[in-house]
């Protein structure tokens, strides 16, 4: 029964968006942490690799190709994705609560 409430509609997708954004934040944070690490190559999650392959930074003399500007902008976009998913999810739960209680939530 719970699965019919929480396992349908946009909830699973929004949940997946949230966990994707969290996982991607970890990858981006690791790229930024390794901005000066010898030989380190920029990483990204599989789904976005095709997008990112085009904009990886130039190879520095120490074999590192992390571009701080690219990573920071990826992080901002990812954080926007995360807050969108979080806001939509909160909205869905408000709707559910209204449906259950039968009264509008202010």
């Amino acid at each position, binding site marked *: 029964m719970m699965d019919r409430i929480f396992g349908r509609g946009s909830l699973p997708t929004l949940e997946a968006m*949230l966990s994707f*954004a*969290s996982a991607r*934040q*970890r990858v*981006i*944070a*690791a790229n*930024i*942490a*390794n*901005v*000066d*690490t*010898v*030989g*380190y190559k920029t990483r990204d999650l599989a789904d976005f690799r095709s997008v990112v392959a085009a904009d990886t930074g130039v190879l520095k003399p120490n074999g590192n190709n992390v571009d*701080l500007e690219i*990573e*920071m902008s990826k*992080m*901002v976009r990812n*954080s926007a994705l*995360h*807050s969108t998913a*979080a*806001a939509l*999810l*909160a909205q869905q*739960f*408000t709707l559910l609560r209204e449906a259950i209680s039968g009264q509008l939530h202010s």
Partner: protein
Amino acid sequence: MDSIEISAAGMRAQRARMDVIAANLANVDTTSARTELRDGEVRHVPFRRKLAVLIEGADGLPRVKLVEDPSEFRVERQPGHPHASAAGTVLFPNVDPMVETVDLMAASRAYEANVTAAEVAKSMQQSALRILG
């Protein structure tokens, strides 16, 4: 690994770099870090510039490796200097304050980038908590 911990590892690595740079700058004129006996004469060996090289650890986080800069010492002729050789020359550290300053700025910027990443991770966690209403 939590993203805030990852950013903290980045900050730690950059701060280690800044520590090494500060030690280089502090020792820019240290003409006798140790002495050695060569040809029956006590020679003063100046401070040798150190470099913090970041290498990737097994967990994907940066590790600091300290290496010495093998470049030549600066030689100056100062016969009255207490650390001068019999020939009247003094060896000075291979530290260039300009190079150190630029490295310090780079490390400081990279540190700030990690701070920003930690702040973003924090606000993401907070917005996830707000789902609870």
